[in-house]
C-alpha cells in the first residue's frame, strides 16, 4: 500500500514538473511572438507610409521625414560577412592548434584566455577600437592598403581608421572567441579511432585535419559560424564607435557606413516625430527578420551537411 502511495505522489510530481517545463518552453515562443507583434504595431505607420520602398530606398532625411533602410541593411550584412571571412580561418586555426597540436600545459591558459575574451562587454571593444585600433589602422595599415591595393575599388577611400573595414575588424575580434571555442569543442568530439586510422594508413597531420577532422565536423563548424554571425549582426556599441555612421552606400570598404543596430543606438533618443520613431522601429523589425532568416538557413545547412557515417 505504501509503495502504491509513493508511486502515486511521484506521478503527480511528474505531471506538475512536465506542466511547468511546458509552460517555460512555450513562454519563449510566446515572448518571440509578442516582440514581433509589438515591432509590427509600432512600425505600422512607417510600413503604411513607405511600403516596400522602405527596403530599397537609400533616403535618410529626418528633416523632411523620408526614410529608407537599404544603407543600414547593406552595412549590417556586409560588415558581418567581412567579419566572418576574417574570423573563420583564424578561429579554426586556434581550435585545431588547441585540439591537435598544443602541448598540455598550454591548452588550459589559451582556452581560458579565449573564454575571457568572449566575456568582455562590447562597449570595451568599442572604446578600444576607437582609441587604439583606429589610430593604428589609419597610421600603419590603411595608407598601405590604399597605395598597394587601391586599384581595386573596394580598397579606396581616406585612411581615417573609421569605416566599414575597421568595424568588420573589431567584429571579427569579437566573434573569434565564440567560433573558436565552439569549434574546439566540436573537434574534441571526433572519435579518436577515425584519426588514428588516418595516421595508420600513413596520412600526415595536415591530411588528417583536412580530410578527416574537418569533413566530420562540417555541420558543427557551420553552427559555430552562424553563432558568430548572429552576434555580429546584432552587435551595437563596438560598431557604432567604428563604422562612421554615414547613411551612404559606398563600395569602398574604407568609407564610413552604418548598420541597423548602430542607427538605432544613435538616433533613438532624439527621434521626436512619429514617422521617424516608427521608421527606426521598422529597422528593428528588419533586423529581427534577417536574424530569423540566417537561423533558418543555418538549420537547412546543418541538416544537409550533417555527417551520416555513410557516404
Amino acid at each position, binding site marked *: 500500500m505504501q509503495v502504491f502511495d509513493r508511486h502515486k505522489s511521484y506521478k503527480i510530481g511528474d505531471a506538475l514538473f512536465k506542466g511547468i517545463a511546458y509552460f517555460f518552453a512555450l513562454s519563449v515562443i510566446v515572448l518571440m511572438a509578442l516582440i514581433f507583434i509589438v515591432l509590427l504595431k509600432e512600425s505600422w505607420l512607417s510600413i503604411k507610409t513607405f511600403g516596400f520602398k522602405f527596403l530599397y530606398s537609400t*533616403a*535618410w*532625411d*529626418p*528633416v*523632411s521625414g523620408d526614410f529608407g533602410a537599404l544603407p543600414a541593411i547593406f552595412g549590417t550584412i556586409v560588415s558581418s560577412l567581412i567579419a566572418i571571412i576574417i574570423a573563420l580561418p583564424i578561429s579554426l586555426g586556434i581550435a585545431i592548434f588547441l585540439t591537435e597540436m598544443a602541448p598540455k600545459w598550454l591548452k588550459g591558459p589559451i582556452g581560458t584566455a579565449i573564454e575571457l575574451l568572449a566575456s568582455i562587454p562590447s562597449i570595451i571593444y568599442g572604446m578600444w577600437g*576607437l*582609441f587604439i585600433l*583606429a*589610430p593604428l589602422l*589609419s597610421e600603419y595599415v590603411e595608407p598601405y592598403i590604399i597605395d598597394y591595393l587601391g586599384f581595386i575599388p573596394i580598397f579606396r577611400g*581616406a585612411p*581615417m*581608421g*573609421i*569605416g566599414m573595414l575597421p568595424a568588420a575588424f573589431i567584429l571579427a575580434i569579437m566573434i573569434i572567441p565564440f567560433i573558436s571555442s565552439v569549434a574546439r569543442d566540436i573537434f574534441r568530439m571526433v572519435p579518436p579511432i577515425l584519426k588514428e586510422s588516418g595516421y595508420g594508413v600513413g596520412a600526415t597531420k595536415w591530411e588528417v585535419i583536412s580530410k578527416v577532422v574537418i569533413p566530420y565536423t562540417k555541420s558543427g563548424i557551420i553552427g559555430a559560424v552562424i553563432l558568430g554571425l548572429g552576434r555580429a549582426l546584432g552587435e551595437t556599441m563596438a560598431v*557604432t*564607435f567604428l563604422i*562612421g*555612421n*554615414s*547613411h551612404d552606400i559606398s563600395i569602398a570598404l574604407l568609407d*564610413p557606413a*552604418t548598420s541597423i543596430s*548602430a542607427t538605432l*543606438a*544613435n*538616433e*533613438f*533618443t*532624439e*527621434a*521626436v516625430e512619429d514617422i*521617424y*520613431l516608427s521608421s527606426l522601429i521598422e529597422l528593428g523589425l528588419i533586423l529581427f527578420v534577417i536574424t530569423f532568416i540566417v537561423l533558418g538557413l543555418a538549420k537547412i545547412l546543418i541538416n544537409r551537411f550533417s555527417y551520416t557515417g555513410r557516404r
Partner: protein
Amino acid sequence: MKKITLILALLVMCFGSSGLALAENLINGAGATFPYPLYSKWAYEYAKKTGVKLNYQSIGSGGGIKQIKAKTVDFGASDAPLTVKDLSDSDLLQFPMAIGGVVPVVNIKGVQAGQLKLTADVLADIFLGKITKWNDKRIAAINAGLNLPDDTITVVHRSDGSGTTWIFTNYLDKANADWHSKVGFGTAVNWPAGVGGKGNEGVATYVKRIKNSIGYVEYAYALQNKLVHTKLQNKDKNFVEPSMETFTAAASGADWKGTPGFAVILTDQSGKNAWPIAGATFILVQENPTNCANAKAVLQFFDWAYENGGQMAKSLDYVPIPKNVAQIMEDAWAKKIKCNGAPVWTK
C-alpha cells in the same frame, strides 16, 4: 518561503511607493542629455538645502517631450524650442534654463586655436562638400597670412540626434540658401558629407584622430579636449572668439518678451560681440497641471536655480540665463500656469 515573502514585500514597496512618492518631496523630470550635468548638480545642492529631490532622466529631448505630453513626468526638457502650435496643442509652457555655445573645431597641421576664421557661408559649403580642400580660394580670402595645406577636408558631424546639431544646422540654414534647400535643420539631418561620431565626445575624438578634419562640439567639450576652435563672423561682420562673454552677448541681445512661446533661437544674433552659434535649452511644464503641489515644487526648484544656479552653471561651462530674462519667465509662470483657475506661481 520567508525569502519569497521578503522579496514580495520589497517589490510591493518599490512599485507602491513610485505612485505615492510624487507628493513626497520628489520631482520627476525627463529629457535632453545636454543639460544633464547641470541639472544634477543643481538637484544635489537643492536637495541638501530643502530636502526636495529631483529625479532627472536624461533620455533625450524626444523622450522628454513625449513624457511631458503624456503627463508621466512633472517637467520635460528639450534642447530645441517647441513651436507655438506644438505648445498650445499640448497645453505646455516652455522656458530657457541655460545657454550653450556650439564651436567649430579643426585639426589642421600648424593651425592654432582661434587662428582660422570662417564665415557661415563658407562653413556651410564645407559641410555641404562643395569646398573640399583647406587651401580653397574662399577660405584663403578670409585668412590672409595663414598657411593652409592642399589637403582634402574630412567633415565630422554627430551621428546621433542632438540639440547641438539642431543649433548648428539652424545656423547654416540661415546663412546658406543651398543648405536650406538641400538639408534644412533639425536634431538629425541628412548629412551630405562626412563621418558621424556618437555624442560630443565621439566628434571630439574623431576630430583629434582624423587629420585635416572639421567638426562641431559643445563649447565645454572643445575646452576640455583642448581642441582647436575657429573664429566665426557674426551678424555685425565681426570675427569673434567663442567664450562665456560672447555667448552671453548673444543671449542678452535676443527679444525674449516679443517671441511667442519664448521659442527664441539664438543663432546669428546681432550684437558686436555675439557668438553666432548659441542656443538655449528649455524646460517644458503643463499649463494646467493635474498635480498642483508638484507643479509648484517644480517652479520653486527652477526659481531657486535662476536665483542661485549661475555660478554652478559657469563652473560647468554653461552660460546662465541673464537675470532680466529670468524675470520675464517668472512673470509668465504667474500668468499662465493655473490649477483650478488659480495661479500656481505666486511670489
